C-alpha cells in the first residue's frame, strides 16, 4: 500500500562535494563524489519539480560548498519556480556582495552561514583553511539584504568554551536564528571523535548557558541547540525517522534516506537519472529498508518510545554495534550501551582537568592529530 506512505517535507540537495573548507567533522561520506559525476542544471531542475509534486516544501542547498556551483543562480530560480522554499547552507565562500545580491534576487529565502568558532585561530584549525574573516564580511553584507539569516555553529570540545562569544556574534548580526549543533559522529567526525567529543562538565555548562540565552532572546533570535547524543538517555529521532520526512540527493543523483546511509553494507541506492522521485521514495529498497517498525529488534520492538525516536539512528547502530537493525547504542535501554559508556568514561578521565566552559588552562598542551577532509577530484 504505497498510498499510506507520507510524503517527504524537505529535499536535501547536496549540489557538490567540492568545498574550500576541510572541516574535521564534515558530514560528507569518506568517499567523496567527483566533479565529473555531478548532476547537471537540467537534472536538478527536474528533481525540484518532481519533489514539489511529491509534496516537498523546502529545498536545502548544501554540499560541499553549494556556491562552487557556477549555475547556483539557475538552481535557485528553478527551485523557486517549482514553488519550493530555498535554504542555502554555506561557508560563505566563494562570495562577493554583488553575488549575494544576485542570490537574493534569484529568490533565495534563507541564508545559513556556518561558523567553525568565534575566534579566527580555532576556526582555521577546524576548517583547515583561512575562512573566518570572510565569514565576518558576509555577516556585514547580510544586514543590507532582505533574506532570513541563520548562523550555524558546530560545537565540539575545541570550541565549546567560546559559546558566549558565538552568541555575541549572532546578536550583532541580522540573524533571526542561531543553531548550536553539537557534532554528530559519522563520517569524518567519527574518524576524529576522540578529539571532538566534549566532556560531561562542558556539556552541562553549555546547556545551562544556552537555556538562559533562549529565554533572554525570545522573540528576537531563535536559539536552537542539539546535544551530542552519546550523552543522551534516549536516541534522537534521526532524520525524523528513516524515510519519513527527508530525502537526500547526492551530487551524482543517488537518492539517500540520510547523509551517512552509505556506511550501511548491502544497501543500494537508486539514481534520479534512472527513476522518478516518487518511485524512489515509495518503493525503492533503500527507503523501504528501515521504514516503519518491521525491521526492529528488542528492546525497540515493544518499546513505548518507538513511535517517538523510531529506534534512533541506523547508521550509528551499524557504526557502534556492527548491526544496522540494532537499537541505537546511545539509548540507555540498548544492549550495546556499555560501548558508549566506555568511550565516555575514557574521555572524561583524560580530559577532566580544565575542560569546562571557562577552562583553567586556555589551550591543551598538544593539538589533536586531525584527519582533514580533502577535496574530491
Amino acid at each position, binding site marked *: 500500500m504505497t498510498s499510506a506512505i507520507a510524503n517527504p517535507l524537505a529535499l536535501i540537495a547536496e549540489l557538490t562535494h567540492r568545498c574550500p573548507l576541510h572541516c574535521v567533522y564534515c558530514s560528507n561520506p569518506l568517499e567523496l563524489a567527483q566533479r565529473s559525476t555531478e548532476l547537471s542544471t537540467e537534472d536538478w531542475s527536474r528533481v525540484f519539480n518532481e519533489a514539489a509534486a511529491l509534496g516537498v516544501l523546502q529545498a536545502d542547498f548544501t554540499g560541499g560548498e553549494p556556491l562552487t556551483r557556477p549555475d547556483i543562480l539557475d538552481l535557485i530560480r528553478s527551485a523557486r519556480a517549482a514553488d519550493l522554499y530555498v535554504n542555502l547552507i554555506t561557508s560563505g565562500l566563494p562570495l562577493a556582495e554583488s553575488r549575494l545580491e544576485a542570490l537574493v534576487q534569484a529568490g533565495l529565502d534563507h541564508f545559513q552561514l556556518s561558523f567553525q568558532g568565534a575566534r579566527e585561530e580555532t576556526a582555521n584549525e577546524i576548517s583547515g583553511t583561512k575562512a573566518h574573516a570572510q565569514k565576518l564580511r558576509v555577516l556585514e553584507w547580510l544586514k543590507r539584504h532582505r533574506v*532570513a539569516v541563520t548562523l550555524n555553529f558546530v560545537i565540539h570540545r575545541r570550541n565549546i568554551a567560546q559559546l558566549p562569544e558565538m552568541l555575541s556574534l549572532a546578536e550583532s548580526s541580522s540573524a533571526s536564528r542561531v543553531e548550536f549543533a553539537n557534532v554528530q559522529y559519522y563520517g569524518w567526525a567519527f574518524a576524529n571523535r576522540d578529539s571532538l567529543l566534549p566532556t560531561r562538565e562542558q556539556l552541562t555548562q553549555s546547556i545551562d548557558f544556552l537555556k538562559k540565552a533562549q529565554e533572554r532572546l525570545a522573540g528576537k533570535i531563535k536559539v536552537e541547540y542539539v546535544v551530542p547524543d552519546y550523552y543522551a538517555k534516549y536516541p534522537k529521532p534521526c532524520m525524523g525517522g528513516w524515510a519519513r520526512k527527508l530525502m537526500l540527493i547526492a551530487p551524482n543523483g543517488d537518492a539517500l534516506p540520510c547523509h551517512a546511509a552509505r556506511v550501511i553494507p548491502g544497501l543500494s541506492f537508486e539514481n534520479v537519472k534512472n527513476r522518478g522521485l516518487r518511485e524512489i521514495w515509495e518503493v525503492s529498497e533503500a527507503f523501504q529498508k528501515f521504514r516503519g517498525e518491521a525491521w526492529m529488534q528488542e528492546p525497540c520492538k515493544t518499546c513505548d518510545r518507538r513511535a517517538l525516536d523510531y529506534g534512533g539512528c541506523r547508521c550509528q547502530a551499524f557504526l557502534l554495534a556492527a548491526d544496522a537493525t540494532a537499537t541505537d547504542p546511545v539509548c540507555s535501554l540498548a544492549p550495546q550501551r556499555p560501548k558508549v559508556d566506555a568511550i565516555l568514561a575514557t574521555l572524561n578521565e583524560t580530559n577532566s582537568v580544565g575542560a569546562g566552559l571557562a577552562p583553567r588552562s586556555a589551550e591543551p598542551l598538544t593539538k589533536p592529530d586531525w584527519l582533514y577532509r580533502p577535496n574530491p577530484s
Partner: protein
Amino acid sequence: MSVDLESHPRLAPGCRMNEKTQQPRTLLMPERALRLNGPSLEIVERCDGKHTVQQIITELQQLYSKAEPAKVEQDILGYLALLQKERALDFEA
C-alpha cells in the same frame, strides 16, 4: 513578549506564503512550515506592514461576527505572539 496594538506586523525576511494556486495554503519559514486554515490565513494575509494589530482585530471581528469579540481578540494576540516566537514577524512602528 507582548504585542503592541498600534504596531504594523509584517512577515520577517525569509517568511512567506506559498503560491495562491497551491493547497493547502502554507506559511513557509526557516526550517518550519505552518499550515494555514480559515482564521490563521486571514490573520497572516493581513501581516503586510500596512495593517495595525488593532485593524486586524477589528476586521476579523467583523468577519467572524458570530464569535465573541473578546475571544477573537484574544485568539489573534495569541497567534501573533506564537508567530513572533517563531521569528516569523517583524512589528514595525
